[in-house]
């Protein structure tokens, strides 16, 4: 007699099982990034205090991903919505989750000003160097020479500028009490640690926290698994340096 072994998929405790499998394409980076975020929330034991906000674009597919109170907002507007939530309820731990279009194009004024004001929220930008949900258009982060639907001959920095360096920009305009880092889906252990530090920074009431996570979009990149990983690990990191840009010193007694 054969005994069927059912393997429970391993997922963070704060993920909502009823809404799994999640809605992202196979190979998409969002699932991994949100798993790292979920692990960080679990390890800090803050699930019941988190208010999770997601943007428009593929990030919106996370609106029911967590067993956390969640708000799906408009394109680029997750940062001000979570700012509003946090200002009215400082005891909540607010996470604004968006793509690179939401963070660096349509919502850039919100990111710049929330960072300048040192809002005590965590903003996460998943950077997959193009617009996923709308079908692969050029984003502020598209690499020079990279072909997209709106840069079919390759991005020309002469006419469309260079890729936006989000964490570098945020680090330049925030005080020392901010936490700023760039992680990658290719190193989830490190990314989880970054999320933990970023969330701890908010819990401690220090200031703004910002993590960009390098992500993948094999659907629009039209890449197989090997090419996808190669692009995330080798090509993207040539331009987007992974690491912490700003980490407030631990307070006494921590």
């Amino acid at each position, binding site marked *: 007699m054969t005994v069927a072994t059912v393997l429970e998929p391993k997922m963070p405790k704060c993920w909502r099982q009823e809404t799994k499998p999640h809605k992202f394409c196979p190979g998409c980076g969002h699932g991994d990034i949100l798993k790292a975020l979920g692990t960080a929330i679990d390890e800090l034991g803050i699930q019941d205090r988190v208010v999770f906000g997601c943007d428009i674009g593929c990030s919106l597919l996370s*609106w029911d991903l967590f067993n956390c109170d969640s708000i799906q*907002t408009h394109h680029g*507007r997750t940062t*001000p919505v979570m*700012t*509003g*939530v946090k*200002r*009215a*309820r400082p005891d909540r731990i607010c996470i604004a989750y968006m793509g690179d279009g939401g963070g660096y194009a349509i919502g850039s004024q919100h990111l710049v000003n929330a960072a300048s004001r040192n809002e005590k929220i965590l903003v996460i930008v998943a950077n997959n160097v193009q617009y996923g949900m709308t079908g692969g258009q050029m984003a502020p982060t598209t690499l020079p020479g990279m072909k997209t639907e709106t840069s079919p001959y390759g991005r020309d920095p002469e006419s469309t500028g260079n890729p936006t360096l989000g964490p570098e920009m945020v680090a330049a305009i925030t005080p020392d009490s901010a936490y700023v880092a760039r992680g990658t889906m290719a190193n989830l252990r490190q990314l989880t640690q970054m999320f933990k530090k970023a969330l701890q920074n908010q819990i401690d009431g220090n200031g703004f926290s910002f993590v960009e996570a390098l992500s993948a979009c094999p659907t629009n990149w039209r890449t197989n698994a090997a090419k996808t990983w190669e692009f995330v690990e080798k090509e993207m990191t040539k331009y987007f340096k992974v690491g912490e840009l700003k980490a407030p010193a631990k307070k006494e007694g921590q």
Partner: protein
Amino acid sequence: MADKPIQGEKRMFMTGNEVCAYAALAANVDVMYGYPITPQNEIMHYWTRLAPKHNRTFLQTEDEISAGFTTCGGVMSGKRCFTATAGPGNTLMQEAMSMAEMMRIPAVFIIQQRGGPSTATVIYSQQEVTMTCFGANGEGLRVVYSTSSHQELFDYTIKSFNVAWKYRFPTFVLGDGYQAKMRESVTIYDPEARGIQMVDTYPLVGLPGMPGVDRDPAHLRNTYNTEEELYEVVKDLVDAYEKMAPEIVEHSTMECDDADVVILCHGIVSRAAIEAVRNLRAAGVKAGFFRPITLRPFAKDALRPIAEKAKKLLIVESSQGQFAKIVTDALYGLTTPMETIFKPGLGITSDEIVNKVKAMI
């Protein structure tokens, strides 16, 4: 707890913007989010002076888009929140207002209309009627009070918070630059002293208990996958709005019973119309006056019999027919002749109305 900002009642002489700030304070508002634009600036100026003394807060955002969305966020946290804007700021804020419509966010918006289109003037108009009532990609599921005096600015600002939180539709106080900047006498009061109970607020997110264990998580969204799914959602919104409408619709009339000419207007233009009706009556002309106080929902049922009975109608407004569109929509099928005074971005005097009515009879 800090002392009540207004004890009992007080007779004051102040600008409309100051009145709005005091009304928000009296209504127990927790947070104002705002961005500078004339002619609403002094609402922020007075709020920022008064609020800290009563443990209330303020955030000056980077633009009106952000002011609208931070207000939505604050409301979803369960706090009484509002913002104020005008003209191009109202344009930018439409995006947040449409999210408030879709997600039933009880946010309050004070609009002090200025000239349009574009930058235009910072002074006065009634040109934000269409945008405030029906702006953005939506169905106009909003409550809009068009005020005509400082007393109404005070009364309806307080009322807006209660209507918003009772029915959970975004609620608007539609004033204008004249009301904003002019000084006049007003009685400000503690709502409780008048028997007005502020409707309780409650959080939509950040609820107590462990989500997924003690309760389901609040998963609030405005995105839907199929036409049918969206249709059901919007139908429910419309049903809720239509159920609410008869409970909150407001209008006022003057001398309509035997009127040959009924003047239709809203907001501050009503003051010229009231004066015109008095003068016309004194001159033996049977003039009357109908004024919707809520532009959304509109007092269609009250207006139709009056309009049907009148010999002629005169629509008067400081825009090129934005209010007239609402009126003619409500009066579809009636044949009462109608004339208009459209003065986009310009104030209207009682004399102009008197002369026009005399020319009509």
